[in-house]
């Protein structure tokens, strides 16, 4: 039992190590990853400036733009990852190893979180500097807690996607594409979702990114306290638990189906 636990911890570390080292091997890529998201979100900041809207909308865009980097990481580096691993021929090695499949996904998730956090932080600092955005944080620790909870919920969703996308096979590419812009829209990356009709707000609230983003914005821009975001807090915990359970279930299901149909390691399908 203890031996198995240690083995899985090593697997998590191993997968995380590869992701962190691989992701930071080239300096120009780190620079590009931090700078490039700024281009898109700057366009929306300029749109708001052109429309003479209040300054807090620029802050909305900056925070939205920073959080979107995590969503992209979840979609492409978590969701589509097992499919890419299959294409590269690594998947069968993962499955043969005496470790839990979840350990592989945990390692990928932690590595992705660390890499993306570094880049997101750089984007945030650059955004703050360029657009001279002011924040009003009353409880930094609470911001950190909500941020971590959001990441856990998001990456749990990514873990769920990874087995589902593997099942879809070649559709993984389209599936990730399909979830990119619609989620930008539904989570209100570039505007507050209070402008949505009520039914759309309900649908949008089923996405962890929407809840996390809303809570982080309230804490950072409006200086809200725990009472204001307690619903967000509990929803994020609920999301994390349910999505992790679903991820575990779908991983087992995917493996069973894929083995049965004999296409677990078949490329280009």
């Amino acid at each position, binding site marked *: 039992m203890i031996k198995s636990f240690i083995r899985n911890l090593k697997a998590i570390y191993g997968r995380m190590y590869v992701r962190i080292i691989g992701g930071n091997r*080239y300096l120009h890529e780190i620079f590009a990853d931090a700078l490039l998201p*700024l281009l898109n979100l700057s*366009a929306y900041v300029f749109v708001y400036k052109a429309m003479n809207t209040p300054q807090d909308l620029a802050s909305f865009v900056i925070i939205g733009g920073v959080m979107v980097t995590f969503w992209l990481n979840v979609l492409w580096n978590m969701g589509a990852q097992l499919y890419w691993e299959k294409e590269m021929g690594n998947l069968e090695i993962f499955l043969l190893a005496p470790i839990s499949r979840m350990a592989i996904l945990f390692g990928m998730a932690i590595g992705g979180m660390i890499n993306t956090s570094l880049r997101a932080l750089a984007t945030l600092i650059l955004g703050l500097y360029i657009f001279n955005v002011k924040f009003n944080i009353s409880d930094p620790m609470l911001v950190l807690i909500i941020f971590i909870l959001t990441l856990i919920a998001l990456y749990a969703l990514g873990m769920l996607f990874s087995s589902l996308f593997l099942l879809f096979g*070649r559709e993984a590419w389209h599936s990730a594409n399909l979830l990119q812009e619609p989620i930008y829209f539904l989570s209100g990356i570039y505007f507050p979702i209070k402008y949505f009709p009520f039914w759309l707000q309900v649908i949008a609230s089923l996405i962890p990114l929407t809840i996390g983003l809303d809570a982080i914005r309230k804490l950072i821009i409006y200086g809200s306290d725990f009472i204001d975001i307690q619903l967000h807090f509990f929803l994020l915990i609920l999301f994390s638990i349910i999505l992790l359970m679903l991820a575990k279930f779908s991983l087992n299901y995917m493996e069973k189906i894929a083995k049965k149909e004999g296409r677990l390691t078949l490329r280009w399908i």
Partner: protein
Amino acid sequence: MKNLKTFKCAFWLGFKIESNWTDPFLFAIYSLIRPLSSLLIIIFVYIVGALSGYSNPDYATYMVLGNAFFIFAAQAIYGSIWMVHDDREHYQIIKYVYVSPSNFYIYYVGRGAFAFLLSSSISSLITIFVGVMFLGVKIDFLKIDYLFFILNFLISLIGLISLSMILASIGFFTTRTMWSLSEGLAGLFFLFCGILFKPEQFPYPLQIFSYMLPLTYWVSLFRNSLLGLRIESLMNEFIISLGYTIFLLLFSIILFKYSLRIAKKKGIIDAILTF
């Protein structure tokens, strides 16, 4: 004749890969949801601005038409990079295409043509349709000088295809850098080329940069010719746009040949480095 055959085969292959061998209904959904979501983002950004007191109905027209054109630009930028990557690293067919008697340049033009011409056109038309129906985008379809619009549009499409081939040429040498390159270029164009707001909104030195980019002229001509402006009032922009297109076309052909020669010399045409 041989080039036409190459184009046709590559176009068909492009269709098969883009549509992912999926059923047409599912493919239609894939093709529509992304541009519609982008449009919805713009709609809500506009609504937020309007509710904050901004009132200028022409601005919605500006944003929607800019976005409708940007769909082609985005496809040109992302598509070319993916084509080389897919052929080289994913499906690993690049060596077979290279040794075939087909023209490599024409092959890649044809390979990207499906997504570029059909998929982007449909998305762009839907964007304009939604804008006209629900956002009060004012296009007087009787006022448009269609000959001028088509001429303009063709010139900008040739320019975008050339840009796409320049990126494909760079794709022969790059692996992971190409994601940053395409992402960066798309972001740069989206920000600086008057897609969502006028270049005049920028502080002075950035305005100059904006007017140095060909896409600024292509999108402006697309927008203005749709709004019924005549060739006489757009002559300067038209000449600059034509000049950029001719330059990019020639440059893309030269760069493509040169890149291919160097890649062959280095032995990396079919090198698998990322997958």
